[in-house]
């Protein structure tokens, strides 16, 4: 069959399935919100819940799923429906019908594709799923229980081949710190340069957001190319060395960036990628500071540095603080740059941070349960750091008085 035609059919199936499940959910909600007064409500509701679950599962996965699973799901739906039906009849009484009908499709989607995977991750982390048990698991659904064994292994066994968890943790913190500070410094510098009336401002601004605007995959892969043996960086180093023997004496010469300096390469690429976002954000903040403050300060005889320190910095803080928070989470979770630079066969693990090691452990090394436990530990770290950060940034919030 024509592949284009086949793909259109596949998409129609998908759209049909989504519309179908939304329709079923809405029917269920309609029954519960609008018909709760009818005498036939309770029996119909009790019957409809398991039927609905069966129909949804069957239309999602066809006949590939085992009968016992459907039985379990239908039974569970029936049990849950007993309190639900009585709740609707006696407490809810048709209130809030519209809002619930509106949010149900989205939240069921979120529940199935975010909440359920989270629970599943916990299940995996205390069971033994690896390449050797994958086949039996997908056929029979049976997995041996391992308790906290994999959580212990995260600290004692390398997620990849050599690097340890603690090395990864320190490198992640260092990576986040160095990237975010360079992003802010670079973005602030460029924004200050741009924040004046001058010719060509629009053109500079446009050119400077190019790394951000490009598809990240292209940007990273192209930059990676420039760090290869015959890439731009080495050509330049080579020419510099030829041009001045003094520099060559200092050690300016082509290097194996990807194998010997992978972390530095990733950092340079990520700094290049991240500065435009900070620049645009900070520029927006700068433009919202009224010129009259600066004029008043000039009349009082303030120097440029004093103006910067006493007007610009405090008034920029409400713009920079959320941008830094966002940037920190993004940098902490940045798999893309590191994986695209070092993820190919034979890539090093000298640049890996926690999340990229997690990705590689799961999908290059196929350590499923191990990486589930690893992911939970990373999540706890990120959660702790965020809570700490929120507390710290609350302490500085009063600048706005």
């Amino acid at each position, binding site marked *: 069959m024509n*592949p284009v035609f086949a793909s259109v059919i596949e998409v129609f199936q998908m759209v049909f399935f989504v519309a179908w499940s939304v329709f079923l959910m809405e029917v269920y909600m309609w029954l519960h919100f609008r018909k709760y007064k009818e005498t036939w409500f309770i029996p119909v509701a009790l019957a409809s819940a398991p039927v609905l679950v069966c129909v949804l599962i069957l239309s999602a996965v066809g006949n590939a799923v085992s009968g016992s699973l459907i039985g379990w799901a239908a039974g569970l739906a029936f049990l849950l429906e007993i309190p639900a039906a009585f709740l609707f009849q006696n407490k809810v009484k048709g209130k809030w019908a519209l809002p619930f009908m509106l*949010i149900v499709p989205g939240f069921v989607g979120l529940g199935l594709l975010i909440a359920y995977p989270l629970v599943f991750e916990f299940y995996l982390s205390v069971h033994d799923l690896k390449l050797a048990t994958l086949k039996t698991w997908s056929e029979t659904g049976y997995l041996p229980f391992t308790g906290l064994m994999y959580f212990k292994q995260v600290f004692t066994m390398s997620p990849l081949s050599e690097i340890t968890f603690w090395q990864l943790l320190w490198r992640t913190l260092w990576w986040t710190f160095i990237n975010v500070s360079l992003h802010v410094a670079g973005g602030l510098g460029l924004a200050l340069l741009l924040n004046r009336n001058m010719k060509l401002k629009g053109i500079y601004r446009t050119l400077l957001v190019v790394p951000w605007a490009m598809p990240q995959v292209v940007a990273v892969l192209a930059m990676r190319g420039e760090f290869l043996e015959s890439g731009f960086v080495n050509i330049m180093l080579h020419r510099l060395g030829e041009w001045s023997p003094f520099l060559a004496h200092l050690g300016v010469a082509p290097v194996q960036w990807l194998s010997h300096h992978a972390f530095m390469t990733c950092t340079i690429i990520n700094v290049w990628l991240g500065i435009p976002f900070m620049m645009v954000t900070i520029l927006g903040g700068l433009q919202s500071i009224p010129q009259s403050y600066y004029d008043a300060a000039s009349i009082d005889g303030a120097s440029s540095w004093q103006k910067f320190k006493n007007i610009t910095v405090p008034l920029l803080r409400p713009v920079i603080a959320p941008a830094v928070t966002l940037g920190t989470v993004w940098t902490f979770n940045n798999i893309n740059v590191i994986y695209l630079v070092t993820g190919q066969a034979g890539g090093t693990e000298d640049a890996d941070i926690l999340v990229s090691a997690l990705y590689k452990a799961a999908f290059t090394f196929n350590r499923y349960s191990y990486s589930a436990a690893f992911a939970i530990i990373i999540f706890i770290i990120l959660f702790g750091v965020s809570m700490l950060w929120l507390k710290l940034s609350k302490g500085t919030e009063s600048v706005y008085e």
Partner: protein
Amino acid sequence: MSNTPLKYNPKWIKFRNRAADILIHAALIAVALVFVYPVIRIFSVSIRPGDMLTSDSLAIIPQNATFLSYKKLLADTNFLRWLWNSLIITVSTSVIGVSLASTAAYAFSRFKFPGNKMGLSLLLGTQMIPAGMLLLPLYLMIMKMGLVNTYLGMIIAYSVSSLPFSIWILKGYYDTVPRSLEEAALVDGTTEFGAFYRIVLPLSTPALAIAFLFNFTSAWNEYLVARVVLADSTKYTWTLGLFELQGQFLTQWGMFAAGSILVTVPVLLVFLYSSKWLISGLTLGSVKG
């Protein structure tokens, strides 16, 4: 005149400003060059003739420039197929994502129902989950449903990833639409849903466009999920395809560059055209709190 300090001499001030201007322009031009240079260089590699792909020349327009790489890319690889796959997956996920978000956001914006506040903060909470964390269970679910290597699997994996963010943007925008419009419509005899569907939704086209664009770009540029779910080279999205081309570096460098240019130029144009819009859109929600 002669005893005014240099600091207040108008000629000196003019000279100083001039010099500062020139320095600033020089600095900006240098930085802009660094930022844009990789793009220029991809372009120059893409028009190099085949025997010069790894030469160390830095000329932007190489000798014997040729579009052979583009021809080879379109003829010898599945590049168009990859683009088509990406397009199908991206459009479907964006449509699904925006329609789910637009209704849910309306509920959050207009109704006080139990769980309203909690739902909104749960949505924010989902943004804290590391992206890599959900990937493994999602992959195993998709595998168990037999959807590996299908568009369906990709669409399922993508469809809700931008949902929380879209809901926040749209809620922020709905909050700015005056309620009296809906009340008038209700008096005229529409249902509550009709007021949303006929009045609020058409008024929110800008926010819907922003949400769509956001969904679209995040799915269009996605790499990591695709790497896991898609295995067959005819089902690849363009991100996987380009990675593949660059993986076999020496032989395919020209084609990689050509493909990058073909993908990047439209994206750049759309971004530059919509950037002002996008950035103001991102702050829509936060301004109104």
